[in-house]
């Protein structure tokens, strides 16, 4: 593909910001020292890591920089938080999470289930909102940890983590938030969210892949999941991914600076979403309209299949994603949409557009111009659309 890509898949990953690349480069060339070394050549690098730690702490509103532990990715953060707490409290055998979590949490919980743990998966309603009453009722003496995502990756729906945290804190139950899809999109302040652990991933907010962080509130009882050297105060041993960590620090600095830009991103998202909903008769919105991160929209087309839409968009230089079965490598559509009770017919035709501050209005206009052509071509091929028309359903123009 020679054309410039219109990249609307920022919940999958984001462009590494040019400032971030620039900040990282010296650590791949002249500044390759090991921060643990006694000599200045290595030792000075330690300062850069501490600078990055401070920036990430600022992004999350952490009181102390040492509450930030660098990891390799969001999945590691989620695993560290949950497994680390469970191994500290071997007698507590109950986990609470939700049905719409990322596989990094869901599949870990399923594994604990096989090992004999009891796991409660909190359901969501049609808009993707959690059944809080059930969550609150499920908490018991045996509950070791509650893990809830801050924002859902597929729909962008934001969960009421403040409310959940307040309830759990009163009962002394540890609370982990998977904030991978929230960082950089909405303001986060752990001073106001009563949580003990908060996971983020660098590449979702314009840092490179291969670096993440876990916020561990001071005093939280947790064991490491890796054992080795003294790095990260022994909580996450292994020689630091220095360039990645510095890149994440820079990205955190930029994310704070550009947070007001998210208003503009929201306007673009709303324009895209509103016009899609108005233009097509066979489309509906997946997820609550309010209480969403500003960059995400998930729409379900009926009678046409999501992967085919993606491939046709791809031909036109537009990158998006789908919750359809075909695009997931399994034969079932997205677990998130199924948990919401989205009919299979439109789950298979679901498309997620996720924007970033690098998207322009021209790109959105182009997408809105191309999408009707794509949808019409696929409706033409579809064996279902024809029947629907014959049934006399009106087509809005």
């Amino acid at each position: 593909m020679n054309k410039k890509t219109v990249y609307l898949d920022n919940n999958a990953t984001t462009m590494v910001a040019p400032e971030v690349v620039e900040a990282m480069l010296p650590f791949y060339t002249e500044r390759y020292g090991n921060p643990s070394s006694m000599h200045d050549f290595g030792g000075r690098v330690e300062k850069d890591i501490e600078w990055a730690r401070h920036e990430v702490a600022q992004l999350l509103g952490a009181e102390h920089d040492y509450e930030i532990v660098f990891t390799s990715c969001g999945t590691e953060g989620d695993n560290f938080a949950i497994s680390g707490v469970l191994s500290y409290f071997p007698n507590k055998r109950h986990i609470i999470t939700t049905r719409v979590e990322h596989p990094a949490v869901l599949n870990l919980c399923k594994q604990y289930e096989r090992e004999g743990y009891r796991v409660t998966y909190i359901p969501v309603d049609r808009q993707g909102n959690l059944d809080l009453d059930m969550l609150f009722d499920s908490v018991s003496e045996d509950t070791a940890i509650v893990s809830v995502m801050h924002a859902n990756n597929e729909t962008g729906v934001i969960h009421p983590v403040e409310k959940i945290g307040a309830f759990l804190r009163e009962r002394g139950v540890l609370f982990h938030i998977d904030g991978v899809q929230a960082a950089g999109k909405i303001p986060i302040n752990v001073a106001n969210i009563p949580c003990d652990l908060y996971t983020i991933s660098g590449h979702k907010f314009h840092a490179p892949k291969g670096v993440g962080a876990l916020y561990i509130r001071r005093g939280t009882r947790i064991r490491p999941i890796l054992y080795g050297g003294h790095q990260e105060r022994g909580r996450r041993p292994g020689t630091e991914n220095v360039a990645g960590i510095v890149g994440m620090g820079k990205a955190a600095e930029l994310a704070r600076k550009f947070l007001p830009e998210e208003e503009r991103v929201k306007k673009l998202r709303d324009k895209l979403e509103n016009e899609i909903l108005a233009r097509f008769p066979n489309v509906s919105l997946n997820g609550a309209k309010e209480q969403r991160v500003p960059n995400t929209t998930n729409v379900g087309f009926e009678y046409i299949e999501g992967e085919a839409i993606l491939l046709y968009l791809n031909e036109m230089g537009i990158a998006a994603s789908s919750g359809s079965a075909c695009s997931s490598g399994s034969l079932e559509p997205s677990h998130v949409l199924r948990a919401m009770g989205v009919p299979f017919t439109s789950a298979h035709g679901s498309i997620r557009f996720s924007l970033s501050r690098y998207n322009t209005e021209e790109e959105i206009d182009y997408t809105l111009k191309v999408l009707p052509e794509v949808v019409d071509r696929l409706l033409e091929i579809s064996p279902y659309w024809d029947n629907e028309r014959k049934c006399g359903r009106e087509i809005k123009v």
Partner: protein
Amino acid sequence: MWDYTDKVKILYTKPKNVGVIEDANAVGEVGSIVCGDALTLYLKIEDGIIKDAKFQTFGCGSAIASSSALTEMIIGKTVEEAEKITNRDIVEYLGGLPEQKMHCSVMGREALDKALANWRGEEIEEEAHEGEIVCQCFGVTDALIRKVIRENNLKSVEDITNYTKAGGACGSCIHKLEDILQEELKLQQSCADNPETGEKKKPLTNIRRMQLVNETIVDVIRPILQKDGGDIELLDVDGKKVYVALRGTCSQCVASMVTLKNLVEAKLREFVEDDIEVIEK
């Protein structure tokens, strides 16, 4: 991103023979909108020769390409020649398909079978493609693995690989195969513990049948439905007719008929009696 060949890309971008043949004398329909994959194949057969073929599909890029390829391959062929076309031939025509997408070529083959059967006035039995892909290399689902374990009384992961190919290439799924095997062995154990379910030949008394239906719903079916936010209520058992109501997300799900037949009825037939009929009230 799937690694599609150029041929596949050309065919899904500009598929040939899209549409309906109004006076088709052979129609084959496979898949459903619920499965996320569906293909309707229309044929015009004259003097044993396929004069024209058109298709409509609800499916991904490789489904569109496979359907287009199939129609191109069969137009002008005799029925006997068309019968010999395998899904491998479709794959070859396309220059290959990603392993996870092989089922798209199988769908083409099935639609052709159905259309030809329809032309002859025959009915053919359907094979379900359900479940979650466990072995990425060979596209083997958990449903198939479980079926093969039960039917062949498999006892080891090596057996599963020999029978289904699952786990035979990269081996990344071996831990999942082990989990499935252990679950199945446990299930067999619990069936064997109960002589009445172990011995299906002996006719059940009404009271025993009711007990077994209830146990199966509570222990087997409900947990599966609840995973998807659904639920089931047992309303009545009248002879071999079981009356149920689907609740929760199941009640609004367009797939509820599929759930009823493929899950509820299938499980009751497996654990209680093989001629149980499930009716939704």
